């Protein structure tokens, strides 16, 4: 395998099992950077529709049309971020650029008065997000011994998701206090963005013991396209095509009259809470039983959420269960994918490897949303879920077989 012992800076080689191992301080710091940055972005995202329609007097229909475009741009930028991080050998400063760009975007948001300028600012924010994700995950990977990667990503994603859950609550609390306080929310959001950038810039070391790469050598796709990673990309991409966004699951639950419409904004908060409480335990589980296996089995939780949403059952119970299952799905897939991808390529192209896996998953899920949308209207919510669920049921054992070797390789590397 490609991972060498020099890769394990924090824990001595013979760390005894059983004793609870701490994650590297840099992982926690990066987690807090993500936490404050997510408070920043999610607080604004939560009030933006109200602000556009209520204060600027705009209708937002056209906003949705361009949204898909931004997502595509964000996916491409992500590859670029990974590539730049590997090529320059300074993932921290690529990530810093990404966080910085988002902070600058927040500043300009204070002065945007129209849909066009707001859209431009939001897309700059998305570009920043795309840019920083892979270098940051590569830094987490570099700072953590392979046997604890799942736990380390679990810690990071937990902190990250706490920010995502706190942001909207903070924003609406401000509006509750100051009913026309949209600008106050934006000022607070800018403040948190600045804190994130400052924390990253000042207190995160540039290269936490990454292997030095010969200066400014170009990153070649050949280096990234290791057989293991390609296998992961194929499996993750195929499962991504069968992944129905949780928005559709919520709509299916709403369609069945499972809960009153006014709980709608709370559903994704519920999913986030499930996600953040499960990210660390599932990350540890992935370290023990194999990351690829957990990644694939996470899709079984998604499949179970389809079943819960499709069958008639007690409304409240099925809603809560569906949120729990969706949280499990995210906990078993998001950080675990990055943890796994970072290990299947040489350390010198780690950010590119992580970026490739994340991009493949993002693009596959975008495609699947489009396809599922068609099924939704042609077949109706329940039948559409049954169709995609059947596909997932067939794909799961195949995927499990396909990734067996990945976990064996992982075991050999340990």
């Amino acid at each position, binding site marked *: 395998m490609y991972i060498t012992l020099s890769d394990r800076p924090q824990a001595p080689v013979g760390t005894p099992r059983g004793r609870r191992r701490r994650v590297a301080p840099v992982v926690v710091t990066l987690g807090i950077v993500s936490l404050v940055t997510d408070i920043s972005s999610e607080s604004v*995202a939560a009030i933006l*529709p*109200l602000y556009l*329609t*209520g*204060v*600027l*007097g*705009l*209708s*937002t*229909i*056209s*906003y*949705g*049309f361009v*949204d898909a475009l931004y*997502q595509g741009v964000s996916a491409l930028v992500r590859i670029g971020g990974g590539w730049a991080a590997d090529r320059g050998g300074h993932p921290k400063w690529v990530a810093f650029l990404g966080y910085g760009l988002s902070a600058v975007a927040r500043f300009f948001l204070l002065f945007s008065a129209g*849909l*066009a300028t707001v859209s431009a600012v*939001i897309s700059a924010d998305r570009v920043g997000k795309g840019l920083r994700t892979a270098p940051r995950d590569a830094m987490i990977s570099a700072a953590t011994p392979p046997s604890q990667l799942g736990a380390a990503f679990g810690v990071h994603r937990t902190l990250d998701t706490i920010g995502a859950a706190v942001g909207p*609550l903070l924003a*609406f609390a*401000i*509006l*509750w*206090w*100051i*009913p*026309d*306080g949209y*600008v*106050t929310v934006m*000022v*607070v959001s800018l*403040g948190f963005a*600045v*804190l994130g950038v*400052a*924390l990253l810039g*000042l*207190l995160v070391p540039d290269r936490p013991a990454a292997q030095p790469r010969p200066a400014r050598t170009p990153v070649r796709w050949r280096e990234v396209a290791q057989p293991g990673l390609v296998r992961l990309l194929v499996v993750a991409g195929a499962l991504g095509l069968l992944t129905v*966004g*949780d*928005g*559709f699951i*919520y709509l299916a639950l709403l369609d069945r009259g499972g809960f*009153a*419409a*006014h709980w*709608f*904004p709370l559903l*994704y908060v519920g*999913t*986030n809470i499930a996600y953040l409480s499960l990210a660390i335990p599932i990350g540890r589980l992935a370290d023990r039983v194999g990351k690829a296996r957990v990644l694939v089995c996470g899709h079984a939780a998604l499949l179970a959420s389809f079943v819960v949403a499709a069958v008639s059952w007690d409304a409240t119970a099925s809603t809560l269960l569906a949120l729990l299952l969706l949280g499990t799905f*995210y906990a078993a897939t998001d950080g675990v994918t990055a943890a796994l991808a970072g290990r299947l390529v040489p350390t010198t192209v780690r950010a590119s490897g992580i970026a490739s896996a994340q991009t493949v998953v993002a693009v596959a899920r975008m495609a699947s949303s489009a396809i599922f*949308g068609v099924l*939704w*209207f*042609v077949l109706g919510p329940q039948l559409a879920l049954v169709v995609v669920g059947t596909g997932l049921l067939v794909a799961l054992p195949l995927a499990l077989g396909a990734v067996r070797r990945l976990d064996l390789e992982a075991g050999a590397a340990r």
Partner: protein
Amino acid sequence: MSQRARITAFVAIVFVVVSVMTAYAVGAASSYRRSHDRPPTVAIVSDAAAVTAASRPRIVFRHTGIDSQYGVVASVPLDDPGGARTFADIACDRVDATTDVTSCLRTERGVVTRYSLTEYDADGREIQQVSVPGIPSRTRLSPDGSLVSTTTFVSGHSYMQVGFSTATEIRDVGGEGHGNLERFTLILNGERVAPRDRNVWGVTFADDDTFYATVGTGGATYLVRGDLGARTLTSIADHVECPSLSPDGTRIAFKQATERDGTTWWTPAVLDLATGKRTVLTAEQRNIDDQIEWLDRRTLLYGIPRDDEAGVTDVWALRTDGTSRPELFIQQAWSPSVVRP
């Protein structure tokens, strides 16, 4: 920089950022209290005169002066729109009224912000309140007040995804809903279609079975005639948004979309249903994003936000002859509806 210096710098930044955020928020809160404690600057009717005002022809609207009555439903006499206004006891984001019913879309603020539709009877008593799925956009009552439609923006459905769609519903006043209009059978240019990206918005009622609305799909917009009993939407024209049926039922006022500076720009227009002739009222050069209301057979009403005062809007009147300039009709007002007892 040493680690110690870095930590000191970070603590200093935290201190400055938190101080600035707090100071700004406290300042914004006190300025909000100040501006929303003062009485309206426009003339208001005393309580005693209000009782008689409610039985006369009038225009009901949302008051948008930054004062103690912000967002409160008000009315002025039809023959004196610039005169003193009478305040009702309810606050709404969007309001429509007939002689018997008032429909009120509202944002219920809280740590979890929710949205509701409340129906009131002629005496201002609540008939029923129901939740709506998104941010209030349009509401219209049928002429006899037995049906109510709502259009709301639904946003933030999904984790890691921002996007908007509209949810438009028709309900029996005091009764049940007829479901989201997106589920009605859609017939475009004579063909039954089932596109996935369809949005319906801006209902206007002809009677208690027939209505008009906009359907957006594949980047195009259509004027559809809806049949509530048959649950169908049938296209009769394209490029029409937020229709509003004239009092005599012969014409549709709407906003026509064009491109200007890379963004959508809406201009008021009128479509003759019998001849298909459309008149774009370019005398109005500002961007109109409202569902138009007919004042009478020749005059349209719509709201425009003020450029220099966030949250303040005015209602403007525009003759449909195509040559008259728009005129300020009611200041500090939004969501007008004409009530003729």
